């Protein structure tokens, strides 16, 4: 059969199918859903014939374009459901963390190691603080945590800080995760850097005797924020090491699988940081009794530990 006859015979069918596709695109409705797969298979058959008989490029492209449209409608991915979203937080996230427990502890070491090392070092030699921070930074933090200067900010300023913490912290966490792609190096560097930075702030404030105000401020959001940083580093390293040690898979495949497997962790740490931002903006600045503050903090440390240890264990193998 030559091309002209081929086209003449099936042109109406293709036109009808094109109209169906058009209807789906514009109005999102389908008159006869049951017939769609059958019509699509016929189109595929025509496309295969046209290619095989080496009909003109334009005909092949036309059928190819229609088939692509139909393909994307037929095989559209599953949509978002609330159930699936909740399941991420009840099962997928804690399971993913438990699966990577080794990297979690390594990440913790890379963060808390420098953190405590710097605090101890500054305790021994107070002038070290000036090696880690500029004079401007030191005056700023001293002013922020000086117990003698009362601070009270209005609700509007709290919201401003809430926005700032979200934009700053979640951004840093995402970057920590993403930079792990460079064979894990990026995440390691960011973990160490943050450990040193936060440790030097804490160390200096302890040295000048402001530790009470400082701890009362940070203890509220620390469980969420610090754990999220460690999780970001863990996820980044997992991503990077999947490139280094792909095992039985190609690097590209392994990277793709690892990245998709780490999505629950990304979602989880995002939520944790939003919670931390909320606490940091609205709870932490409030002057309350030490018992209340430390109790709140301790409660959430335990809660998080319980969450990661026990949540989602039912169908874990």
């Amino acid at each position, binding site marked *: 059969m*030559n*091309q*002209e*006859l081929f086209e003449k015979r099936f042109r109406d069918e293709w036109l009808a199918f*094109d109209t169906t596709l*058009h209807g789906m695109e514009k109005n999102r409705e389908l008159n006869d859903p049951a017939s769609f797969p059958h019509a*699509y*298979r016929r189109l*595929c*058959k025509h*496309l*295969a014939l046209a290619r095989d008989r*080496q009909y*003109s*490029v*334009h*005909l092949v*492209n036309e059928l*190819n*374009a*229609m*088939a*692509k*449209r139909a*393909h*994307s409608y037929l*095989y*559209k*991915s*599953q949509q*978002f459901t609330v159930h699936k979203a909740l399941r991420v937080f009840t099962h997928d996230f804690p399971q993913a963390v438990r699966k990577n427990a080794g990297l979690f502890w390594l990440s913790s070491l890379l963060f808390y190691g420098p953190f405590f090392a710097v605090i101890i070092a500054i305790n021994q030699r107070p002038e070290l603080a000036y090696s880690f921070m500029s004079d401007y930074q030191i005056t700023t933090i001293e002013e922020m945590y000086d117990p003698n200067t009362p601070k009270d900010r*209005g609700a*509007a300023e*709290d*919201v*401003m*800080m*809430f*926005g*700032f913490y*979200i*934009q700053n912290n*979640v*951004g840093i966490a*995402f*970057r920590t*995760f*993403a*930079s792990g*792609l*460079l064979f894990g190096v*990026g995440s390691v560097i960011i973990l160490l850097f943050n450990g040193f930075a936060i440790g030097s702030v804490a160390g200096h404030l302890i040295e000048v005797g402001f530790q009470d105000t400082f701890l009362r401020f940070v203890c509220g959001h620390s469980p969420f924020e610090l754990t999220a940083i460690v999780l970001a580093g863990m996820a980044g390293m997992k*991503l990077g090491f999947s490139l280094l040690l792909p095992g039985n898979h190609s690097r*590209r495949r392994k*990277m*793709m699988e690892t*990245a*998709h497997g780490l*999505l629950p962790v*990304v979602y989880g740490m995002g939520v944790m940081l939003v919670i931390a931002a909320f606490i940091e903006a609205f709870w932490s600045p409030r002057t309350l009794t030490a018992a209340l503050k430390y109790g709140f903090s301790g409660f959430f440390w335990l809660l998080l530990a319980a969450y990661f240890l026990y949540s989602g264990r039912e169908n874990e193998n």
Partner: protein
Amino acid sequence: MLDTTHPIETPEGVSLELKPAGPTPRAAAWVIDLLIRATGVGVIYIGLVLFLGNLGGGLALILFFLTEWFYSVFFEVKAGGQTPGKKIMKLTVVNQDGTPIGWGASILRNLLRTVDALPLVALDQNGSGIYPVYGLGLLVCLLNKRFQRLGDMAAGTLVIYAEETYAREVNFPNADPSPPPQALTLQEQKALITFGERSERLNQARAAELADVLTPLTGKKGWEGAQKLFDIAAWFMGGRK
């Protein structure tokens, strides 16, 4: 045919061809999106801060955060794989198997944009402006036969040219089907038919220029030669006089 196409095997047994887009249109789309985001966020930011003070400032920061990371995600999933910039450049984002992109893949490819954006360079002396150069992304994109940057590889996505509906109404205007002066191979016939089908999109000068290549066949030069070729193409397409 020499072309950058990526065939995907479908369950129906036929392979569909996707056309991955190279770095140039993607870069253009990115710039357009950047301008849209900057103006949009800038306007809303000024409005919020002017009218709501610190409260507005906080909301603006959250908005800034959301657009920084999730502008592309929202459009890719909800608007058929096309952010406004991509729509203008006629590109779209799909999964590697041709299916529309989902939330997870879109989030991954946009989060990992950070790595593709390296290295960062400071364009002014005090280092207050640090700009992404996308050097790493460009390099990876070019080393890859599907033009995937790192984010695309991790997410399993492709950026392809979006094809509009390929409405083809090819009649050969004023064509007088006539057989070729000598027998032609199948490849040659195909080439002529393709030339004929492009007849409406080529301008006269260009058609003449191409037809000159086949002067030994047609015995004519310039536009006359082109018309003779159209006649032969029409004959191959099945028209008989």
